[in-house]
């Protein structure tokens, strides 16, 4: 297969039914994309294929042939990529971090200023067991409007009573 992976053209000699996930991890050395289930449930393996979020554990190599693929390693090159990454660090969107690559990639196609509902819908296929999702929503909201203010190292979470939540 031939694909543009994170902006680089790659020619790979793989079985057409090999999972894109394995192609990326084993043949391209891009281990940032994670496997949490292998059955399309967890979204940890999310990548963009021609700009569309897919579970790479459910895409055979043949169907990625000729496509442009973005993985977490290539996110920083995308429009809101770096801001999303930074927001996940600053606002607690990443705890153990295993779901994080998939979360960030799934959030990438969202428009700047997306509503909370749009964010939830975009991330509906991504499971996180650490955060309870709220800090992920906050991170995505902030990452999608990368104004200085939203990303200043915050003390938004305040002790003794400050309401600290996205809603």
């Amino acid at each position, binding site marked *: 297969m031939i694909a543009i992976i994170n902006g680089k053209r790659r020619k790979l000699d793989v079985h057409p039914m090999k999972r894109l996930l394995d192609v990326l991890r084993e043949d391209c050395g891009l281990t940032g994309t994670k496997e949490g289930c292998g059955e399309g449930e967890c979204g940890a393996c999310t990548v963009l294929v021609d700009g569309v979020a897919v579970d790479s554990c459910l895409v055979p190599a043949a169907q990625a042939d000729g496509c442009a693929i973005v993985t977490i390693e290539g996110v920083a090159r995308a429009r809101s990529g770096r801001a999303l990454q930074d927001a996940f660090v600053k606002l*607690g969107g990443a705890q153990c971090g295993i779901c994080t690559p998939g979360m960030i990639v799934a959030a990438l196609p969202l428009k700047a200023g997306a509503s909370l509902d749009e964010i939830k819908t975009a991330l509906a296929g991504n499971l996180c067991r650490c*955060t309870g999702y709220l800090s992920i929503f906050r991170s995505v909201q902030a990452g999608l409007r990368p104004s200085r203010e939203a990303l200043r190292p915050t003390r938004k979470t305040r002790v003794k009573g400050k309401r600290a939540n996205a809603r």
Partner: protein
Amino acid sequence: MGRAVGANVRRKDGDAKVTGAAKYIDDISFPGMIFGATIRSTIPHGEIAARHVKLPGGFVVADYHDIPGKNYVALIDPDQPCLAEHIVRHVAEPILLVGHADRPRLIGLEQQVSFEYLERAPIYDPEASDTCFKRISIDKGDLDRGFAEADVVFEGEYRTGHQEQLYIETNGVIAVPGDEQMTVYGSLQCPYYVHKALVVLLGLPPGRVRVVQTETGGGFGGKEEYPSMLACHAAILARKAGRPVKMIYDRVEDLLATTKRHPSIIRHRTGVTRGGRITAMDVEVVMDGGAYATLSAVVLSRGVIHASGPYRCDHIRIRGRAMLTHTPPNGAFRGFGAPQTQFGIEAHMDRLADEIGIDPVKLRELNALKPGDTTATGQTLGKDASALPVLREAVRRSGFREKRRKWRGTTRGIGLSLFFHGSGFTGGGEVKLASKASLELTARGARILVASTEIGQGTRTMHAQIVADALGVPFDDIDVHEVDTDFVPDSGPTVASRTCTIVGKLLERCARDMRKRLGRLSPADYFKKHGSFTVTSQYEPPPNLLWDDEGYKGDAYGSYAWGCNVVELEVDPATFEVRPINVTAVAEIGKAIHPMMAEGQIEGGTAQGLGYALIEEVVMRDGRMANAQLTNYIIPTPLDAAPMKVVMLERPYAYGPFGAKGVGEMPIDGPAPAVINALRHCGYDVRSIPATPERLMNAPRQKAEGKRQKAG
């Protein structure tokens, strides 16, 4: 300085995690590495009568004969074999190991490897089991006198199911054999548990075993004891193959074979006066331990100590037992027995309130533990006993009373739970552990050397904050050494809400000692003049902390964190689906070292607790998890996330670092009973979790107008 503690500094591990650079176990390989798989029993109980192994060349095969040391997973009791020899006690018990250089070749080996069994009758009901792993009794005062003082005696039975930790990264390790040493890399919480298990299994001196933690994609207790088993397997294969061996479970194997939260049966008989004062508490706790002892004894211990809830009562009897059943061993899971028993007491409290016709908040206010009161084990609480403050804060913040009135008879319900959680190992546990922590002076600051693992909760960051402030240097000048048993001392396991309050305290002491030695010099100046040095400190119990393990009396924990949850929910009367619409979580945790990370623990733990309460169900059929796939064992998704209001209160604990107590586990104690109490408010009398729609449909319905329930 003094600016890192209490501030939301940038996580040390953050950047690597958001760029995909962080290396988890499956992201790592070694030259010549092969892959390993486990062949497991398919029956719940029986004797292995014959083994049929027909594998072509290229496979490495190992069984119990290949174990050079002792064939058990060293933990508490030496009862669990690393590889079954003659008897199997549960489905998915490891029998044989197979290695191959080509990963796909390890799939579908059932054709080539099979066993014949002489089956024995399995036991699934813990109350029908004749094998008890552990019994614990707690007695306080005179129970008969307590019941004699009561106007009403009220009983109830409550049940909780299994729960799967469901870390998104499955279990995995790599064993690398060397001339001198066996090294195991892995996704794990407790490097020294794994180290100990390997030493026993391999029959090697401690210096010839090395354990290194790789970035760990969630644990929640699920990587507390199980990695010892997996590390032993990989090491056996690696020894035999003479090559590095990687073993990563797929999700199905992880669900089928690894530990879950203990199911429990909790029975209460409570004496109470008409006015609502509790005079006697008689509690029975039965835990289903699964097929081997693993950590059941300590899970039970924490369970029984929390079984009477955060309430004052002079006459208490608690009887607990952990029983064998022929199901995969249950083990550590965030909360460690306390979520089960506090579900029991908190569900019981609302029924009790109904019974005597008083408001559930009032009943709790009347009985909540206050400073100076004694717990079930007779521990006298200090000034930081915060049951009442958290209760009042939660009631006020959530508008509990008004919603309670307004929603009566509607499809909406509101319920609360009050709970506490001891920080650190129970009783004499910390003294026995005698944990160590070290701090090494570096050219720009200091390097932390501890065995405490980062599993997402922010260990590295939080420890560095404590050290930075105690040493008086900027946060960024503190490094954290990789968790590698060749370098870091044994700081004990990363469990039991102890990483901040116990190990953090050790580090604070190291830093203060280091500061003394530096005098006025900055670390950099001192380093230039004199070079590096290392300070180590070892656990010492706070003064006057006494524990009697025989009588189960005394100071069970150095400190307790306190919590109150209010859950608002809506029930769809057509489908019995429950949607949490709002959660208020108030937690008193001493001091929030990193408020955002502490909040993250509370939000995450609460979400996990809501899953436990409502949808997470392990369906056991013939001793086997029948729904061992993520499609069928369902956890909350982003669309299920309920908005949450987190409020943290701080009442410093004198012997915690900067006053901090533990926060990791407590958040999962409260959601389930709050949910059940909210369901009761909408008229559904459920006494077991998960309260699935199917269960709700069959639950007795109460009259909407707060009619009293009869005892029973």
